[in-house]
C-alpha cells in the first residue's frame, strides 16, 4: 500500500502564471511519456519480475514517479491561477480550458487523455525492461527541443 506525505519532492513556487506554457507541460502529466504513464508502467511490471532486487527497484522508482506526477501537477496548478480572459482566449490553453477549466486533467498536449495504451506489460522481464529503456529514451529526446527554444511560448 501507499501512504501520503504532505510535501513535494522538490519545492514548486511559480510567481507568474503562464497558461500557454501549462498547455505544453500538461503532457508531462498525462502524455505518452508523462509521469502517470511512467508510474503505472513500473508499478504494473513488478509482479512478473523474477528477482527481488528488480521488484524493489520498480517499486521504489514507480513510487517516486507518483511524486514527480504531483510536482508537475503543482506546476500546472500554479501556472493557471488568477487568469484574465486575454490569457485564455486565442492562446494554446483555450481548448483545454473549455473542457477542464483550471483543473489538472491527465491529458497529452495533443489533447488525448491519458491511456494505458501508452505502456506495455508483457510478463517477460526482458521485454518489459526494454520497454522501460524505450520510454526513458523518449523523454530525453524532447530535451534538446526545449533547450533551443529561447523565446517564451
Amino acid at each position, binding site marked *: 500500500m501507499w501512504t501520503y506525505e*504532505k510535501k513535494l*519532492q*522538490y519545492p514548486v513556487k511559480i510567481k507568474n502564471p503562464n497558461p500557454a506554457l501549462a498547455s505544453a507541460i500538461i503532457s508531462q502529466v498525462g502524455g505518452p511519456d508523462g509521469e502517470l504513464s511512467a508510474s503505472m508502467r513500473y508499478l504494473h511490471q513488478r509482479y512478473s519480475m523474477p528477482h527481488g532486487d528488480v521488484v524493489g*527497484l520498480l517499486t521504489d522508482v514507480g513510487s*517516486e514517479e507518483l511524486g514527480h506526477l504531483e510536482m508537475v501537477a503543482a506546476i500546472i496548478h500554479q501556472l493557471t491561477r488568477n487568469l484574465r480572459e486575454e490569457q485564455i482566449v486565442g492562446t494554446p490553453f483555450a481548448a483545454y480550458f473549455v473542457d477542464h477549466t483550471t483543473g489538472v486533467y491527465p491529458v497529452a498536449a495533443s489533447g488525448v487523455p491519458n491511456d494505458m495504451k501508452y505502456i506495455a506489460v508483457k510478463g517477460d522481464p526482458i521485454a518489459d525492461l526494454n520497454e522501460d529503456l524505450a520510454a526513458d529514451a523518449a523523454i530525453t529526446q524532447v530535451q534538446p527541443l526545449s533547450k533551443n527554444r529561447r523565446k517564451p511560448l
Partner: protein
Amino acid sequence: MNNCNTNGIFGNRRREQDPPRRTGCGCGTASQTGGCSNRIHARGEAGNNGGGCGCGNSPANTEQCRQLMRRLQTLDFAINEIVLYLDVYPDCSRALDHFHRLRCERAQVIEQYEALCAPVRAIGNQSSERWDWTASPWPWQLDFVGNDKGQL
C-alpha cells in the same frame, strides 16, 4: 569489508567527520536529542506545544518550519537515491552506513516538524485538540511552507 564498486560516491570526507552511527536512534520522542549528526536544531522545545501547534502561523515558527521542511526534503532526496542504490547493491556496507545516518536524522527532523509546524503524514497529527492534517496548507499551494526558498 567495503563492497562498493564505485569510488567515493558518498565522499570519504563524510565518513571521517561524522560520528560513528549509534544504534537505537530514530524511534524517540520529539524531545529526543543527540545520536544524530543533524544540522538543524529546533530553537523552541519541540513537542512542548500542547494543542497550540501553529501550522506556521507565527513568523518565528514560519522560518523554523521552512528550514525544517527544506531539511526534510533534502534528506528525502538523498534517501531516495541511496535506496535505489541499495536496491542494486544491497551488499554495500558504506551505502548502508550512509542510509542509516540519513534515516536517523530524518526521524528527528520529521518529529520536530510535526510537533512545531504541521503533520507530514496523517498519523503525524500531534495535536490532541485539532485536526491539523487537513487544516494546514497543501504542497501545491503557494503558502505551503516548503515551497518558500527564502534565504536558504
